[in-house]
C-alpha cells in the first residue's frame, strides 16, 4: 500500500456494486463483453487486489483503467476517489494511484490548454443540483467510473495526447504529491491558457460576419452535429427501454404472485396451468430485472466528444474566416490555419473509425442483452407450456370440495375409472361435445365441425404435438360451424392438443 499517513483518510467502501453493475446476467448467450463492465473489486477495504488484468491491446503501448471507486473522508470533505492503473512501455508507473474527479478535471484543463488544436475527450458531467443529493449512490458512482475510464482510455489511445506530459504526470505522481505537482504548474498554465483563449477568441469575434464555408470541413461539421444528436437520442431511448423493462419485470412478479395464490386455491388442471403461468412470469421477470449502466456513461460521452470536434471545426472555420477577411493576411495566420486544418484532418481520420467501432460495440451489446432477455423469457414460457399441457390422468377434478363430489357422484353419476383408456375418453367426448365450449368467434377455420362430424375430427386432433400449429379444432366442441372468418388476422396458435379431457362420465 502506497498510502502514507498524512491525513489518515478513512476507508469506507461504497455499497457493493456487484448487484447493480452493468449487464450482469447469468445467461449464457451474453458474450464476454460484459466482463469489462462488472466491477469486481468494489467493497474491499484494502487496495491490494489486482482486479481484472491490465493488458495492452495490439498496436498500443499503453493501457489505462479506471475503476474501484471508494468513498474517502478527509477533514474537510467527503469525496469519492477512483483507482487509476496504468501500464506503459514508455514510463515506469506505480501499480495504481487514486484520483478524484477534480483531478480529472485538472488533467482535462491542462490538456486543453496544451493542445489547443486537438479536441480533448470530454469528462462526465458535474453534478446537477438534484444529483447532489445522490452523490454517493452506487449507480451514479458506477456510471461516472465508467465514464472516467472511457476518458482515460481515449486519451491513452490518442496519437498525440498519449505522449503528453500531463498524462504522464497524472498517472505517475504519487497521491500525496499530486496536488503539489499539478496545482503548482496549473497556475502558470492557467494564465497562459486564459490568454491564449482570449487571443484566439479575439480573432474569431472580429470576423463574425463573413462565414467562409470550406466544403471539406462543412461535411464533417454536419456529420458531427448529426452524430451528436443521434447519440443523445439513442441514449434517451435506451434509458426508456431499460426503465420500461424493469417496470415490466415488476408487473410480471405481480402476476406471478396472483397465479400462485390462485393455483393454491384450486386444484386439478387449472392449478397446474396457474403454476405454469407463475413460473413463466418468474423467468420473464428475472430476464428483465437488471439494467446495465455502461451505455449511460459512454453514449453521452461520445455525443459530447462529437460536440468537441464540432467546436474545433468551428474554431478552424473562424481562423479561416479571419484569414480570408484579409485584414491580417499574414503568414502567421495562414500557418495557424494550416496547422488547425491539418490537426483536424488527422484527428478526424483517427477518431471516426474508432468511434464507429465503439458505437457498433455498444449497439451489439444492446442487441445481445435484448436477445438474452427474450431467449430467457421464451425458454420460461415454453417450459410453462409444457408443464400446463401435460396430461395428468390420475388427477381428479378437485374444484368443488371433495365432499361435494362424493355426495353427488355415487347416487347420480356412476363414476368411471379415471384411468380410462382412449376409447372411453372419446366416447366421453362424444357426449360432452354437444354442449362444449362455444367460442365460435375465435375460430377462423372453416373446417369446423358440423354437428354430425364432431367425433371423428376430435380424436384426430388430440394428437400431442409440441409445435405451434394453427388452431384447428380445439374449439371443436361446438357443432356450430362458423364459416365466417370474423377476424382474419387473428391466428390463434393452438399449442398443444395434449390435454385429453378426463371427464367423469
Amino acid at each position, binding site marked *: 500500500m502506497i498510502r502514507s499517513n498524512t491525513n489518515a483518510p478513512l476507508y469506507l467502501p461504497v455499497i457493493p456494486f456487484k448487484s447493480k453493475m452493468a449487464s450482469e446476467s447469468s445467461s449464457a448467450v451474453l458474450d464476454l463483453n460484459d466482463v469489462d463492465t462488472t466491477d469486481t473489486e468494489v467493497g474491499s477495504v484494502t487496495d491490494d487486489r489486482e482486479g481484472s488484468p491490465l493488458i495492452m491491446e495490439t498496436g498500443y503501448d499503453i493501457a489505462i483503467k479506471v475503476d474501484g471507486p471508494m468513498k474517502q473522508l478527509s477533514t474537510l470533505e467527503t469525496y469519492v476517489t477512483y483507482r487509476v492503473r496504468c501500464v506503459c512501455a514508455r514510463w515506469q508507473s506505480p501499480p495504481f494511484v487514486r484520483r478524484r474527479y477534480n483531478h480529472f478535471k485538472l488533467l482535462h484543463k491542462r490538456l486543453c490548454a496544451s493542445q489547443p488544436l486537438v479536441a480533448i475527450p470530454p469528462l462526465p458531467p458535474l453534478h446537477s443540483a438534484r444529483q447532489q443529493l445522490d452523490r454517493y449512490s452506487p449507480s451514479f458512482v458506477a456510471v461516472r467510473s465508467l465514464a472516467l475510464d472511457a476518458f482515460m482510455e481515449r486519451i491513452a489511445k490518442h496519437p498525440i495526447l498519449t505522449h503528453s506530459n500531463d498524462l504522464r504526470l497524472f498517472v505517475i505522481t504519487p497521491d500525496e504529491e499530486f496536488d503539489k505537482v499539478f496545482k503548482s504548474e496549473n497556475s502558470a498554465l492557467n494564465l497562459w491558457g486564459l490568454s491564449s483563449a482570449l487571443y484566439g477568441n479575439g480573432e474569431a469575434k472580429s470576423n463574425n460576419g463573413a462565414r467562409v464555408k470550406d466544403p471539406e470541413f462543412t461535411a464533417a461539421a454536419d456529420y458531427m452535429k448529426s452524430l451528436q444528436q443521434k447519440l443523445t437520442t439513442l441514449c434517451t431511448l435506451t434509458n426508456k427501454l431499460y426503465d420500461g423493462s424493469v417496470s*415490466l419485470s415488476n408487473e410480471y412478479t405481480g402476476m406471478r404472485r396472483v397465479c400462485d395464490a390462485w393455483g393454491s386455491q384450486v386444484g386439478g388442471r387449472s392449478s397446474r396451468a396457474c403454476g405454469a403461468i407463475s413460473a413463466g412470469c418468474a423467468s420473464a421477470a428475472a430476464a428483465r430485472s437488471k439494467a446495465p449502466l455502461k451505455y449511460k456513461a459512454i453514449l453521452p460521452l461520445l455525443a459530447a466528444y462529437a460536440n468537441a470536434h464540432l467546436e474545433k471545426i468551428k474554431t478552424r472555420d473562424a481562423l479561416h474566416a479571419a484569414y480570408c477577411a484579409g485584414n491580417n493576411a499574414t503568414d502567421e495566420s495562414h500557418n495557424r490555419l494550416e496547422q488547425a486544418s491539418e490537426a483536424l484532418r488527422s484527428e478526424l481520420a483517427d477518431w471516426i473509425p474508432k468511434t464507429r467501432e465503439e458505437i457498433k460495440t455498444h449497439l451489439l451489446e444492446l442487441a445481445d442483452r435484448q436477445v438474452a432477455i427474450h431467449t430467457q423469457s421464451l425458454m420460461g414460457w415454453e417450459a410453462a407450456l409444457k408443464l400446463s399441457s401435460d396430461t395428468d390422468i390420475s388427477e381428479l377434478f378437485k374444484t368443488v370440495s371433495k365432499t361435494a363430489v362424493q355426495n353427488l357422484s355415487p347416487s347420480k353419476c*356412476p363414476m368411471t375409472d379415471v384411468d380410462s383408456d382412449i376409447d372411453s375418453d372419446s366416447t366421453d367426448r362424444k357426449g360432452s361435445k354437444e354442449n362444449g365450449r362455444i367460442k365460435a368467434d375465435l375460430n377462423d377455420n372453416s373446417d369446423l365441425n358440423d354437428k354430425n362430424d364432431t367425433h371423428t375430427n376430435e380424436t384426430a386432433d388430440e394428437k400431442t404435438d409440441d409445435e405451434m400449429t394453427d388452431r384447428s379444432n380445439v374449439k371443436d366442441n361446438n357443432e356450430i360451424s362458423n364459416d365466417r372468418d370474423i377476424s382474419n388476422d387473428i391466428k390463434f396458435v393452438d399449442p398443444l392438443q395434449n390435454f385429453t379431457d378426463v371427464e367423469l362420465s
Partner: protein
Amino acid sequence: MSAENSPIKPSISQNNIQPVADFENQDALIKHVDITIVESEQRANGTLHIRDHYTVYLIDVKVTDPEYKQLQTMINRIWRRYTEFEQIHDYLQVTYPHVVIPPLPEKRIIYAWRKCDTTDPEFIERRRAGLENFLLRVASHPQLCFDDQFINFLQQEHDWRETITDSGYILQAENKLKSLSVSIRLQKPDPEIDGVKSYGKQLEANLGNFLYTRSKIIEKNYALCKLHANYGKLFSEWSVIEKEMGDGLQKAGHYFDSIAVSIESIAEDEEQLADQLKEYLFYAAALQHVCANHEALQRNLENANDTLTNRIAERGRAATGNSGLMARIFGTTEPDIVRDQNTRALDAKIVADTRALEKARTDLEEFRKKACIEIEYFQRQKDKDLHESLVNFIALQVKAAKKNLQAWTQIKECLQNMP
C-alpha cells in the same frame, strides 16, 4: 318454459332429474339450429347526438335440421340491441333460479388498459363475439334453450319488448333483489352450497386479480414495443448520414419497426383471452346467485319450521286455555267453548302450516338436486374452459417471445455485418 318447442317429446319431464352424465345427452336447441351474430350497426334515436346512437346486432338463425319444425322459418334474421339481451338474460335468471345462467359480455369496460369506449369498433366487435357466445351457451342448455321467451327473442320481430315485459319478470326480479339484499343468516347452512358459494367468491377474486395484472403487463409491454418505433426512426435517420454503417442501420431500423407493429396483433389476441376470462368472472357471480337462491329457499324452510313450531306451542297454550295475557296472570279465564274454538282454529292453522312446511321442504330438496346438477355441470365446463384459456395465454406469450427474439436476432445480425 315449454317443452313443446323441443322436437323430442320429453320422456324427461320437468321433475325427473337427470344425472349429470345424461345432461349432455339431452336435447338442446343447438343441435337443430345455427346461431350466429353476423354484424353490427349503428342506429340513431332520432337525434343526431352521438350519445343517442346505439348499436344493434344482427342475429342470424338457420335451421339446419330439416326435421325441426318448431321455428317458424328456416332462416331468420333479427336485429337486437344490448339492452334487449340484458332483458332476456334477467328474465332467464329469474325464471330458472337453479341454473347457472350464462353471462353477458361486460356492459361497461372493465380492466381497460388503453382508452376505450363502448363506441369503438374494436370493442363492438368483441361485444358481438361475446353476445354470440351468450346465445350459443343458452342454446346449448337443455332447459334454457326451449324457453318461450328465448325462442321469441330469436324470432319475434315486433314488440318483443312488450312480450317480455308482460311476462312479469321485472317484478319477480325486483322481489328477488329485495329478498337477496337482506343478508341471510341461516341456522343450518348447507355446507356444500356454502362451499360452492365461497368457491365462487374465490374464483371471482382470483380472476379479477389475474385480469388486473394482465392489463398492467400488456399496457407496459405495449408502450415498450411502441418505443421500438422510435428506435426504428432513429436508425433510419442515422443511416442517412453514415456511409459504411448506413446499410446495417437501415436494415436494423426495419426490424425495430416490425417489433413495434407486432405487438398490435398480440394485444388483440390477448384481449380475446381476457374476454374469455371475464366471461368466467361473471359466471362466478351467477354461481353465487344460484347459491343465494338456495339460501333463500332454505330460509323459507326455516321460517316455515319456526312458524309451525310457534303455532304448535300456541295451540298447546290455547288447549290449556292459557293464551292471552290475562290468563297468565289470573289463570284460566275463558269458558270452555271459546277454548275449544280457539284450539280448533289453531289446529286448522297447524295443518296449513305443516303443509306449507312440507312444501317448502320439497321445494328446497328439488331445488337442491337440480342446482347441484347444474353446478356440477358448470364446474366441469369451467374447468375445461379455464384450463384452455390459461394454456392459450401461455401459448400467446411463447409466440410473443418468439417474435421478439427473432426480430432482435435479426437486428444483431445486421449490426454485426456492419463494417
